[in-house]
């Protein structure tokens, strides 16, 4: 897990973009506020002061030209992008004119080209070049968090400001001392080249090798401080545009294009992200910030854990309290019923209380009987039930809820029906046939107790 993910939630972020590739250092202060982006150029003293005052990540972003920083698509004969990324260093090592161990490198993009192959956009720079650039920047008062690729920065910023190209696009940076061309087609970056002598044939040859059909329509986007400088790097513009004709555009404030490209890429590293200041070269400030992020993450996790523990303990505490409250009620009530304290008889209070009350029961039964409804009312109920079914009764014995009746009915079904009515009236009884009965009638005896 990358703790920088916490930072991604920040709505407002500021970064300084530093273009130190030429004779003059140009700095812009870029602000990203949600979806909105703003930038403004800064004078060098103010920029140095701002760089020291800026907090958060990243604070300062700079870059290296294609002469110091190689950016190249490398085909990997593997379908899985994860595996391809792991294999890429070996292939890059073969491609590089110097050992990979002496470089800092990264993979800006990895995409599937065919069902069985991938291609990765590898970016690499020699450590000594990186150290030199860092030292240059430090001596100017900047300690960059990000060292980007100039070629990728030109391309992504052109897309940011001019949208995706319809066909071939050449983003040409006319610097103080170099001309850099970043070539792409549609949305894809293709290659980049930087030269100190644009009038020589090397650049044209390189362009011809990248753009296979010379007369194909090309979109030129020009930027850089040397664009309007008489005799500067922009002087080759007409010749190049004649060789590769097409639409030609100039960006707004061209001298700050690269600086703002670095800054905005640092603020929103969605497309072709790259930072070569990594590994042993990582800025101390960046490491501290990284450690701080981790600590914030740890503290957030600790906070959640603490909350969980607190919730758990609260649950248990509340449950114990409810349990104790109920226990106190039970002890008090049972003690009152039993007539003595049951504090030391936990778990058996109900039984003890019940036994005590039931022990008083037999003595109280006489009172209960004395206040019970009159027995003649019960007798009347039984006689009414019998009359309704034309039952003749010879003898009735009632003793509490026990009933015994001898009688006869017109048929056995009538007797049974009446027996059920007696049951429903609350007398548990069973009906038995009796032989002795008046002529034409069926005799029965209703006895106490259920069948």
């Amino acid at each position: 897990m990358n703790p920088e993910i916490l930072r991604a939630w920040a709505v407002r972020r500021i970064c300084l973009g530093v273009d130190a590739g030429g004779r003059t250092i140009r700095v812009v202060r870029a602000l990203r506020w949600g979806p909105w982006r703003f930038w403004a150029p800064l004078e060098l003293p103010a920029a140095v002061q701002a760089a020291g005052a800026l907090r958060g990540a990243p604070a300062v972003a700079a870059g290296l030209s294609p002469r110091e920083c190689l950016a190249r698509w490398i085909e990997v004969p593997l379908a899985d992008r994860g595996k391809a990324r792991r294999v890429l260093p070996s292939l890059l090592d073969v491609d590089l004119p110097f050992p990979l161990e002496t470089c800092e490198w990264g993979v800006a993009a990895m995409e599937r080209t065919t069902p069985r192959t991938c291609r990765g956009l590898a970016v690499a720079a020699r450590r000594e070049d990186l150290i030199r650039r860092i030292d240059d920047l430090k001596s100017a008062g900047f300690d960059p968090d990000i060292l980007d690729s100039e070629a990728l920065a030109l391309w992504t910023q052109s897309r940011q400001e001019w949208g995706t190209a319809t066909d071939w696009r050449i983003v040409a940076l006319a610097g103080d001392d170099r001309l850099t061309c970043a070539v792409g087609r549609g949305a894809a970056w293709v290659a980049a080249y930087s030269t100190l002598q644009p009038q020589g044939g090397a650049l044209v040859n390189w362009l011809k090798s990248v753009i296979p059909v010379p007369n194909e329509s090309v979109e030129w986007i020009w930027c850089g401080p040397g664009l309007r400088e008489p005799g500067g790097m922009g002087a080759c513009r007409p010749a190049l545009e004649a060789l590769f004709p097409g639409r030609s555009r100039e960006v707004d404030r061209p001298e700050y294009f690269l600086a703002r490209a670095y800054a905005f890429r640092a603020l929103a590293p969605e497309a072709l992200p790259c930072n070569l200041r990594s590994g042993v070269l990582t800025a101390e400030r960046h490491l501290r910030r990284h450690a701080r992020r981790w600590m914030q993450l740890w503290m957030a996790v600790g906070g959640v854990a603490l909350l969980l523990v607190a919730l758990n303990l609260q649950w248990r505490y509340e449950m114990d309290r409810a349990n104790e409250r109920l226990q106190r009620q039970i002890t008090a009530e049972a003690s009152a019923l039993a007539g003595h304290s049951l504090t030391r008889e936990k778990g058996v209070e109900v039984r003890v209380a019940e036994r005590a009350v039931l022990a008083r029961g037999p003595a109280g039964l006489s009172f209960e009987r004395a206040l019970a409804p009159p027995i003649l009312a019960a007798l009347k109920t039984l006689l009414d039930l019998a009359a309704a079914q034309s039952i003749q009764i010879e003898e009735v014995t009632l003793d509490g809820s026990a009933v015994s009746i001898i009688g006869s009915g017109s048929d056995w079904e009538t007797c049974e029906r009446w027996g059920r009515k007696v049951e429903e009236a609350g007398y548990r009884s069973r009906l038995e046939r009796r032989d002795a009965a008046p002529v034409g009638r069926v005799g029965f005896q209703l006895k106490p107790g259920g069948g």
Partner: protein
Amino acid sequence: MKYSPLQKLLIAGTLLLLLAAGVLTVLLPSSLADGWRRLERKRQDLDRLAEIRRMADGQTARRAVFDRLEASRPAPLESILRAAAPGLRIDVSDMGQGPAAEGWRWERSGLTLKDISDRDLIRLVGALELQRPPWKVVALTIRGGTQTGQVSHVSLTVETLTRTTP
């Protein structure tokens, strides 16, 4: 990545908290279930105690009715029978006595009557039960007579409560 001793302590504390939270959270469902069962048992106990309380209150209330009576015993059985059913032959037998609640005792008698009209029987039982304390008919056996409204044999068991202490 290098951490200061304080940060290491914080991380160790967080890990311990995480462990504690994990263990507690894993054990929580079973612990909660046990707790709920305990509470449920206690609630059932309380409900049962409420039933017992109602039973005890019933006992107390019934006893209180008799404690409020001015007479400590009903009129003698013979005098009630003579007044309620003059001319009728009633066999009276003593069926025993015993202690009721503290300060009270019960007495029981058996009455046997023959050839009595149902009206006389109702009047007789009414006279017995209207006493304070009453002579309560707790059991009866009635055998039908040959004529309508006539009972050939009646056997009653009557019970009363008498105060043993003034």
